[in-house]
């Protein structure tokens, strides 16, 4: 019964989305608050219905109901409960259902909490969100229904890719989808602004929290994905410029640009057209990602069902949605008000430069991702665009962006004094230079790129902190005044500082790891050893172990630190999953401060003397922890910003009565 209730609920959600779109559109045309309320009610109930459907699917996975085709294809009774639950969104159909859940969820939030929005903007935004829901729900119901049943259920399921049986991957898709689909609200708001001809400060203030939420979730989702690739694939790396990674990275870059351009629109009413353009672009890139991953044009663990029909359908949804959005943009944007003016050296100009660089970076990633696909389609020849391309194009753009970053927040709005801003950064510059010199002097082998990168990281972290120091007048006013100012800093400011410093932390980790990592691979018999970066790994034992749904060989390696002490006992595994016959390797990671000693057990072979030997690979990944801590800080900064009460219009309106001269001390400074 429960499965069929789910099947009904997902169809109900589709019909309600149609009602949501129709009623809200009609409400805008007839200026009817009652019809608008009907549209909002439909949005709320579409989400409720889909939540029921999703719960039904999770139930089917938990009880292993193999009469559901999707469960048969993606689960197995031997799979632990946690991964059975995660299997509900580990498949193509289930993940599309989750996408729809996020889509209707954001629609419900817009309908339920969009009270501060003007009636016209809200009605059009709710209608657009409904239409986006209709497209993906219709696709789910008619072309990729997770509730399709099997007349003759098999005895066992066909399991899930064992690589995906991992806690990080249980969380990775939900975060990623909240991020991808969070951008749909921004898309809907952009359409509403175009229809209403109004993209003013109020609108921009509405765009910001949605973008922030989506951006933070995307940051966490991408980082989890990278972390998973790092410790699960056992290749020693964390980012491979894989088209699937790029597919999630491009919406992130656009959302980052949008966050910054929305500030300009909000503070100065400037750049409304560009902000709308980015708002349309963010969700377009999200849909592009969904298409790339699901159409079968890419081969990877993400490329679920290789099904051209579904690919064509998704491409149609992408084309129609983005096409209509940008056509509306071309028609309406030229008529938009231009907004405030600003001098070439000003906070606005700095943010424009930020946007130009981020847009150019997105374009290079897009080219590097699509070119091989287009080339393969046209010439039938498979080429691969790898790290060398991105190192030559993306990295320099980012280098310029990050070099200029600390100066941006120190510039005043409208007209700024660049010299004064740079002067305030002398501490950061000095420390960065010292870091470079120290790196060149100490780190072996000597690397100019490494020294420059470390200097950049220090520059970013100290530069971001400089801005806070400026705001609280550190060392210039008495301590109590400093503390008072520190307490008065708005959360938005903390968020920005954390995000920028987090970027610096990431740069430190990424540069250090890529420049000074070491790798040794050797075939070892029991008792033999290999050395990597001064650490000695001795293969002490290899024993079979049994997992819940796999058999494994577990090696025990004694890792001795360069000073002769015991660093850790590394226990990497090589697992055989019987249900699918796949072999995976389970990496052992010893954390040494910020660095990782990373050990991979290869397959068993027969040595020259007939005894068993194993291929063991040891990696030394210095400061690898920072690569994941940095983005974590960035996402945390996003959440802190999101909690700034100035972003919550309703609460803000109550807290600050109109024109009342600062009854409460308002936060110092502005949001950037």
């Amino acid at each position, binding site marked *: *019964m429960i*499965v*069929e*209730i789910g*099947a*009904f609920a997902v*169809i*109900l959600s*589709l*019909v*309600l989305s149609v*009602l949501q779109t129709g009623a809200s559109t009609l409400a805008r045309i*007839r*200026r*009817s*608050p*009652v*019809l*608008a*309320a009907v549209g*909002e*009610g439909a949005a709320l*109930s579409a989400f*409720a*219905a889909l939540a029921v459907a999703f719960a039904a699917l999770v139930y*089917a996975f938990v*009880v*292993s*109901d193999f*009469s559901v085709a999707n469960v048969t294809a993606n689960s197995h009774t031997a799979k632990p409960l946690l991964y059975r639950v995660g299997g509900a969104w580990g498949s193509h159909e289930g993940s599309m259902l989750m996408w729809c859940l996020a889509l209707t969820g954001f629609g419900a939030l817009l309908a339920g909490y969009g009270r*501060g929005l*003007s*009636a016209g903007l*809200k009605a059009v935004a709710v209608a657009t969100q409904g239409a986006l829901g209709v497209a993906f729900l219709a696709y789910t*119901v008619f072309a990729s*229904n997770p*509730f399709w*049943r099997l007349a003759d*259920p*098999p*005895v066992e399921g066909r399991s899930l890719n064992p690589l995906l049986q991992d806690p990080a991957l249980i969380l990775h898709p939900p975060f990623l989808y909240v991020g991808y689909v969070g951008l749909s609200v921004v898309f809907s708001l952009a359409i509403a602004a175009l229809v209403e001809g*109004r993209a*003013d400060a*109020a609108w921009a*203030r509405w765009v910001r929290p949605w973008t922030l939420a989506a951006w933070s979730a995307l940051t966490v989702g991408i980082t989890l994905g990278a972390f998973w690739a790092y410790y699960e694939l056992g290749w020693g790396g964390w980012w491979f410029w894989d088209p699937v990674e790029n597919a999630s990275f491009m919406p992130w870059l656009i959302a980052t640009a949008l966050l910054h351009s929305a500030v300009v629109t909000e503070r100065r009413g400037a750049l409304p057209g560009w902000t709308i353009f980015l708002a349309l672009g963010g969700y377009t890139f999200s849909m592009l990602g969904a298409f790339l991953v699901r159409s079968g044009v890419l081969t990877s663990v993400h490329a679920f069902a290789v099904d051209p029909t579904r690919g064509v359908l998704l491409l149609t949804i992408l084309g129609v949605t983005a096409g209509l959005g940008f056509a509306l943009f071309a028609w309406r944007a030229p008529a938009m008000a231009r907004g*405030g003016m600003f001098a070439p050296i000003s906070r606005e100009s700095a943010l424009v430069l930020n946007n130009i660089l981020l847009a150019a970076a997105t374009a290079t990633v897009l080219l590097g991702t699509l070119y091989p696909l287009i080339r393969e389609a046209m010439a039938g020849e498979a080429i691969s665009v790898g790290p060398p391309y991105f190192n030559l194009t993306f990295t320099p753009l980012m280098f310029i962006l990050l070099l200029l970053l600390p100066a941006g927040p120190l510039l*005043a709005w*409208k007209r700024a004094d660049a010299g004064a801003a740079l002067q305030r950064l002398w501490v950061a510059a000095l420390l960065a230079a010292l870091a470079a010199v120290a790196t060149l002097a100490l780190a072996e082998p000597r690397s100019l790129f490494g020294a420059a990168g470390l200097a950049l990281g220090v520059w970013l972290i100290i530069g971001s902190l400089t801005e806070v120091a400026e705001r609280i007048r550190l060392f210039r006013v008495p301590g109590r005044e400093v503390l008072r100012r520190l307490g008065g800093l708005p959360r938005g400011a903390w968020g920005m500082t954390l995000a920028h410093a987090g970027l610096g932390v990431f740069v430190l980790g990424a540069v250090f790891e890529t420049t000074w990592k070491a790798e040794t691979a050797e075939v070892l018999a029991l008792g033999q050893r290999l050395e990597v970066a001064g650490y000695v790994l001795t293969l002490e034992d290899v024993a079979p172990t049994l997992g819940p749904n796999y*058999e494994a060989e577990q090696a025990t390696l004694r890792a001795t630190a360069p000073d002769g002490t015991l660093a850790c006992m590394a226990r990497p595994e090589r697992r055989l999953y*019987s249900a699918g*016959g796949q072999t995976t390797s389970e990496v052992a990671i010893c954390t040494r401060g910020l660095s990782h000693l990373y050990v991979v057990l290869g397959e068993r072979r027969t040595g020259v003397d007939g005894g068993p030997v194993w291929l063991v690979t040891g990696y030394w990944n210095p400061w690898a922890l920072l690569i994941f801590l940095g983005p974590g800080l960035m996402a945390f900064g996003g959440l802190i910003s999101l909690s700034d009460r100035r972003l919550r*219009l309703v609460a*803000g*309106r109550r807290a*600050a009565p*109109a*024109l009342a*001269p*600062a009854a409460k001390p308002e936060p*110092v400074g502005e949001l950037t």
Partner: protein
Amino acid sequence: MIVFWIAVGVLSAAVAGLILRRAARAMAGGGDADSTLPLYQRQLSEIEDLADRGLIAADERRSTHAEAARRLLSAANAAGPAWTAPAMARPVLLAMAVAAPVAALGLYLGLASPGYRDQPYAQRLDQWRAAPPTQLDAPRMAAVLRSVTGERPTDPEPYRFLAIAEMASGDAGAAARALREALRLAPDRADLWESLGEALMVAAEGEVTPQAAAAFQRALEQDPQAATARFHLARGQIEAGEVEAGLAQWRLLLSDLPTADPRRPVLQAAIADVSSGPRPAAPAVVGAPEIAAMVDGLAARLVAEPDDPEGWVRLVRSYSVLGDVARRDAALTQAKARYADNPQILSELAKAAAVEPMR
């Protein structure tokens, strides 16, 4: 079924109720005020506040203030009159709220499988356990036995039966795993070691791998007369080129087997085969009698219940592995005729027929 209709009813009523409640609130005049003006007013007060604290200079205060005020004025001008529509007729609203669930139900009845019950694995397992064992096919039998092993974790027998059922389902790897479990509980049973060796051998498509040989050796340690282990170890010797030594072992084994032993003819045929040819040729049926019996059981079941594509593929593969070309071709012809319009099964059949026989 009644539960389903109650759930559909509750869900539909909740949805319609939610829509009607929002509409009723809007009709009662609970409309939202435009927040644009308060927002600019707040921006103005923020500027005042910053200026009061000396964070912006006096002339900047003036120009910023002027700009924000200009925007406030233009926003006030741009804001149209508030939306006020006459209350809508209640029947129209009601129709809208009810139409959605009704349309959804119509679509559901056309698209989905109304009345199809849930089939949780635990419930199906209970049914299989309640059914007479003769009515279960090998995979279902294996599922039942697997649940029995969970209930009697210290008893090696359920694992042994599970291994037989897994073997019959064509999953030699699973059979080997079950036997390892059984051996963990009863390491001194020669028959279990022999079965493990065979399972490993079948998993390796007939080759006597070092692991399989090790299992047979363990069987011999427990029971020096273990016939199956002796047979396969000798076969391994013959394959490795030590034909004479292997044949000697086989002849010794033949003399040890009682005259009534059903394995004698198989062994005699194998000996004749190897001693006649310059190279060790595959005996007609080299598998142990248990395997042959399992395959016969499968064939018999397919005669009774022929609509089982997986079963046919397994049967064809089994004959291929056993080297029984004639029966393989007969089964293949039958299966091909049966599934002529299903290319996927045909390709699986072809693959199964192409499996190398074990030598």
